[in-house]
């Protein structure tokens, strides 16, 4: 189909970002060294040094201590470890069988599903925090809950910034509330890292999830940054690496590459955010001009820099009368890579739980697209989207009128790409 030959506009950085040169170089350099970082001999120590230097680098960049860094395979593993590990530890600490996990209704599935799994298989109770129409968690809801239930709450987990609509959550306030009630607080910062200022010493969360590939590191790298004095039960048992929290041979090259990507993300954050925000406002303006009845979901885009309530790289839009899936397919054909932003498993798309939680009706939720900018994005990408959009919208609306309940997905058995 047309579009394969010309330059593609990749506007789906929230799904995955291109590998950064410093990360690639760090990986390649570290991959030259032989040795298991847990081995006691010289080669082992050499590999271990790479891991420990990466750990220190990440700790310095994020305002935490090296002993807090637990290397993992990425966001999903870190979230599972935090949610399940803190739940099991909390059950023992609180001395009750069925403590509560407090979370929000807009979490990524890597948090939602572990919480639901704990409810189903471990007797956990779940309390889902309300969000407002911009997808911002209501801290008064949390305060009210904790004031009466702190002694039976194992953990609170609320994402730093939402992956679909880009809404930034009041994590510092949430962390403060949790500290007051001595409840561990975990936050998934996968989408926030690199786009928002991130000084963990200021926020004071118990545990923070980061992922390598969303910031230009390799897929399969990530970390759970967890207060070393907080007990967390391991999910994977084995050789006892990473303070016995995360067994498995340490990935020295992956750690080095992750550290390089984190360093770049933190160092460049301010400039990067301004660049993203300029693309964001240009795209929003273009969408409003070309498709006047389009609905921009989430916090006001121009809040990105001034108030910090929206990721500067995110634009999420509902186009009434069109299906997100048809829009995606037509944009794909026009050379634009974007996402419907909704969870799609085994080829069966569902309306986004985030949009439904925001009070968006199901039909509108199904008519949504997410554009996300990143390191390699330019105004040409914005222009490509804005140019393609009117024709695509018109066509998708025509298709929408013949098959109101039919949905395209990007792939059977492909899992979710958000």
């Amino acid at each position, binding site marked *: *189909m*047309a579009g394969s030959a010309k330059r593609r506009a990749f506007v789906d950085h929230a799904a995955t970002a291109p590998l950064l040169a410093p990360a690639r170089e760090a990986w390649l350099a570290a991959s030259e060294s032989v040795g298991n970082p847990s081995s006691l001999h010289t080669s082992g120590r050499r590999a271990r040094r790479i891991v420990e230097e990466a750990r220190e680098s990440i700790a310095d960049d994020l305002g935490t201590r090296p002993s807090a860094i637990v290397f993992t395979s990425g966001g999903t593993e870190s979230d599972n470890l935090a949610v399940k590990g803190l739940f099991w530890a909390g059950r023992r600490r609180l001395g009750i069988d069925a403590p509560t996990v407090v979370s929000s209704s807009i979490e990524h599935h890597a948090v939602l599903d572990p919480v639901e799994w704990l409810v189903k298989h471990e007797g956990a109770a779940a309390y889902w925090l309300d969000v407002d129409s911009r997808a911002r968690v209501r801290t008064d809801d949390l305060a009210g809950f904790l004031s009466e239930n702190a002694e039976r709450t194992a953990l609170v987990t609320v994402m730093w910034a939402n992956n679909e609509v880009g809404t930034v959550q009041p994590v510092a306030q949430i962390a403060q509330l949790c500290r007051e009630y001595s409840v561990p607080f975990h936050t998934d910062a996968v989408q926030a890292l690199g786009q928002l200022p991130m000084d963990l010493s200021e926020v004071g969360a118990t545990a923070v999830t980061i992922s390598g590939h969303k910031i230009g590191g390799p897929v399969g790298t990530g970390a759970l940054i967890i207060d070393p004095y907080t007990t967390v039960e391991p999910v994977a048992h084995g050789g006892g690496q990473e303070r016995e929290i995360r067994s498995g041979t340490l990935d020295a090259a992956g750690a080095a590459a992750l550290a390089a990507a984190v360093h770049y993300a933190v160092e460049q954050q301010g400039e990067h955010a301004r660049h993203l925000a300029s693309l964001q406002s240009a795209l929003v303006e273009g969408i409003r001009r070309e498709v006047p009845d389009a609905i921009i979901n989430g916090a006001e885009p121009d809040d990105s820099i001034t108030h910090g309530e929206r990721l500067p790289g995110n634009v999420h839009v509902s186009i009434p009368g069109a299906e997100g*899936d*048809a829009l995606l*397919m*037509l944009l*794909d*054909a026009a050379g634009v890579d974007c996402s419907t932003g909704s969870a799609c498993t*085994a*080829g*069966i*798309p569902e309306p986004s739980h985030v949009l439904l939680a925001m009070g968006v009706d199901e039909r509108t939720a199904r008519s949504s697209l997410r554009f996300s900018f990143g390191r390699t994005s330019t105004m040409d990408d914005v222009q490509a989207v804005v140019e393609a959009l009117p024709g695509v919208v018109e*066509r*998708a609306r*025509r*298709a929408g*009128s*013949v*098959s109101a*309940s*039919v*949905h*395209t*997905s*990007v*792939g*059977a*058995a492909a899992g979710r790409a958000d």
Partner: protein
Amino acid sequence: MRVIAALSGGVDSSVAAARMVDAGHEVVGVHLALARSKSTGGRSRGCCTIDDARDARRVADMLGIPFYVWDFSAEFAEDVIGDFLAEYEAGRTPNPCLRCNEKIKFKAVLDRALALDFDAVATGHYARVLDGPDGPELHRAVDEAKDQSYVLAVIDQHQLAHCLFPLGDTVKDEVRNEARERGLRTASKPDSHDICFIPDGKTADFLVDRIGQRPGRIVDSASGAELGEHRGTFTVTIGQRRGLDLRTPGEDGRPRYVVDVDQSTDTVYVGSADQLDVVALDADHVIWIGPGLSGDWREVTAQVRAHHPGVPARARMVDAALQVELLEPVRGLATGQSVVLYDGPRALGSGRISATGRVGDAAAV
């Protein structure tokens, strides 16, 4: 042309898509998600398993065409599975493949494709579309053993004008060879025969699970003797011989078949094969691929099952109903089945059998 190639994950649709690419069309591969069940596991049967979806994706990769999954599971559940259950419950024997072609593949999918500015939908069906004086005509495939014009005779000329069947002029063995030569991973996949949403092939269990048990007696149609029990009249089909689990063998030692079903008393009647010979039928839900028949009798060939050679017949329309006289009797014909009328290799149209007349039973029609 801009063509949607429906990729089931089987060998036929793979080769059909490849030929469309070779022909220079702008091709987009689409796999239909029809069932939401995960029960089929890793087995590659039917058209909706995880293996098939993966194979379809890989074929698109190899052909270098975009690939999407279109989810028609809601429509499929209602128009195909729902209809399947309702028909059985009403004492008829439906053909879900025809229904799927009528309601999903060449209706919902085609409509969506056209709305998205595609010109046609290509599938791996064995049939031919030929230009005729009155517009496109549906003809039997060159490979008569694989001919699928029967299950396609539910699409009208408007739809047919946007259908491409690139395998219609090829025999199956050649298609497999071609798939192998092209290096398509689907080359050696077995053909699917079962109803795709009943992957274990146990239709009676599927029906009982969903409709519930409605047990009754199995009775000898001649003697009235009670010979066994059944779980529901919908679990048996006229002409069925196996699986009746009759207590006593027939007095004459000959096999016994389901010859009649009385839903009002939940009774199944069995008898000898000659009781099953149908010589006339009425059909409704008539779809013509072209002008169609009038009130005048016309010599045709009538085919009543997917794998049935067809028999000489004459047919005419009486109001909205199709009336068919079979010049050779057809054994074991149930209401709900579709009859497709042919003029030589050309499929004229189809109807759903609403009544059958047996030998010495002229009053039925």
